[in-house]
């Protein structure tokens, strides 16, 4: 089983639209499993319209809680907390759960033993069925920590099912950025497809995500979205890829059909299969397979 992760560094370059289209194309040839690893803002579901089969609680991490009956407001917790998570009060102190990092330093330092930690639910993860294959996705509740842990969780579930059901390809729609959820999304990937856009921000962010996937030794291919928006910047991406020996496997034209397809809840390759964007995406899928020697089998 192969694992393809779709990343971009910069947000909004079209990761999810590309992931949905590749899911559509790949599923016509082989059995796949899908994972939406952008647990902060999971959107793959909106295009694939899945049926939810299972729902599970996600426990995020520890949060401190102060027992008001035991607290003598001595300020020790306030002094030791490095995350500004202790809210002083006249009678007792309180913990701001959004600020609390869960380090439990206050728990160990409180002279009254008035503080303990608890592990509140921080979100949900789901197993769903789409027309292209099973989808594992999640919902991290507002403002919660540990998105990396939740990404690892949904990916692990996807991998287990893919192994058990002998599915050949795991497609992971990644989060933006380069930090912990991206690192979790990258882990164990055989290939990263980086969706770049021909803008100064897009190039800056492409360089950083490329450095990140290199750091974790995941080979990468680049696809330029909205390539005809700025031909000068697209040429810069081409030159950059050549210099760094990264294959540029597609140029998708700037076309509002991508947004129309999203509004209709369709991958663009299904919504307008003969359009220029769909054609370019079919080429991307062919190049991804060629990169694997024409087979997804290891």
């Amino acid at each position: 089983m192969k694992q393809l992760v779709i990343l971009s560094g910069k947000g909004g370059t079209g990761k999810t639209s590309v992931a949905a289209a590749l899911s559509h194309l790949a599923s016509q040839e082989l059995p796949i499993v899908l994972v939406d690893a952008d647990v902060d803002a999971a959107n793959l579901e909106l295009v694939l319209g899945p049926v939810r089969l299972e729902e599970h609680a996600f426990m995020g991490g520890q949060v401190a809680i102060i027992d008001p009956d035991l607290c003598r407001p001595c300020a020790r917790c306030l002094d030791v907390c490095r995350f500004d998570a202790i809210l002083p009060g006249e009678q007792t102190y309180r913990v701001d759960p959004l600020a609390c990092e869960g380090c439990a330093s206050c728990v160990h330092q409180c002279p009254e033993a008035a503080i303990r930690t608890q592990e509140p639910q921080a979100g949900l993860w789901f197993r769903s069925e789409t027309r292209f294959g099973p989808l594992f996705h999640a919902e991290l509740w507002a403002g919660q920590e540990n998105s990396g842990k939740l990404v690892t969780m949904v990916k692990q579930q996807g991998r287990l099912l893919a192994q058990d059901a002998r599915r050949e390809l795991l497609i992971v729609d990644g989060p933006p950025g380069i930090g912990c959820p991206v690192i979790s999304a990258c882990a164990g990937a055989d290939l990263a497809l980086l969706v770049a856009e021909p803008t100064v921000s897009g190039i800056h962010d492409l360089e950083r995500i490329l450095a990140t996937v290199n750091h974790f030794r995941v080979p990468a291919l680049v696809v330029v979205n909205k390539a005809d928006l700025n031909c000068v910047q697209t040429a810069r991406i081409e030159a950059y890829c050549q210099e760094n020996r990264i294959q540029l496997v597609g140029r998708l034209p700037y076309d509002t059909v991508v947004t129309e397809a999203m509004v209709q809840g369709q991958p663009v390759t299904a919504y307008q299969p003969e359009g220029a964007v769909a054609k370019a995406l079919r080429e991307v899928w062919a190049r991804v397979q060629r990169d694997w020697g024409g087979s997804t089998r290891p």
Partner: protein
Amino acid sequence: MIIAVASGKGGTGKTTVATSLALSVADKAPLFLDCDVEEPNAALFLKPALTQRERVGVLIPEVDWNECTFCGRCAQVCMWHAIAVVGRQVLIFPELCHGCGSCTLACPEGAIREVLHVMGSLESGRAGPILFGQGTLDVGQAMAVPVIRQLKKKHLVEADGAVVILDSPPGTSCPVVETMRGADFVLLVTEPTPFGLHDLRLTVRVARDELGLPVGVVVNRDGVGDAGVDGYCAAAGLPILMRIPHDRRIAEAISEGKALVEALPEYRPGFIELYQRIVHRDGGGTAQEVAR
């Protein structure tokens, strides 16, 4: 007056709105902080002269071997298994350490001191009248929050009373919360598409429902997509403070690294009005400030 510009979904135009807002209120000598430390882009548009640079991170433990008795108390209190005692060795895993200092406090021998584990950089300077600061997370580092926290700490203490614009990272989790904490107003930039709407709802939950902050919406690329965002904003009582039309000229200017109001000055009055509307709704601005 601290305004955080956020969105949930990436690429909706946070940096476009934040930089143009700063340029449009340049007469107030605003402070601009790029808190998207994983992918900081605002400097590409504001083009500040960055004159100060420092490396930042978290404080991680370092053990004094002469004092350590290998009792294992440090490992017991560490919630992230960032320190382990194996026989007569103490192993430290800097990439797991959150820098809470719990092990230092718990060590009965006082054998732990703390040293900086670098995760990124802070840079600052000026872009004309705009004071500019940004954080950049080093490639391969997982934790953005410590860099954001130190960026804000460094600049906000001196910025008392100034107009401050925070360019937030995408998403809805801890880096976004860290950016929004302490803000007076959260400006949510969205696009009128199903993705934009879905992520706008999530960000409203963070900013308004969890943090209790006043929020307003900017609809970018108005005219693409569908009417979902308008319907939601009306139903949820969210004021739409500005609409930026879907215009290929804007996309082209931004692709070149030009700030919207510099490439297309006809948008400047709209941003000045946006600022006024934020100040009015928030009630945080003085009457003179509004009148000016």
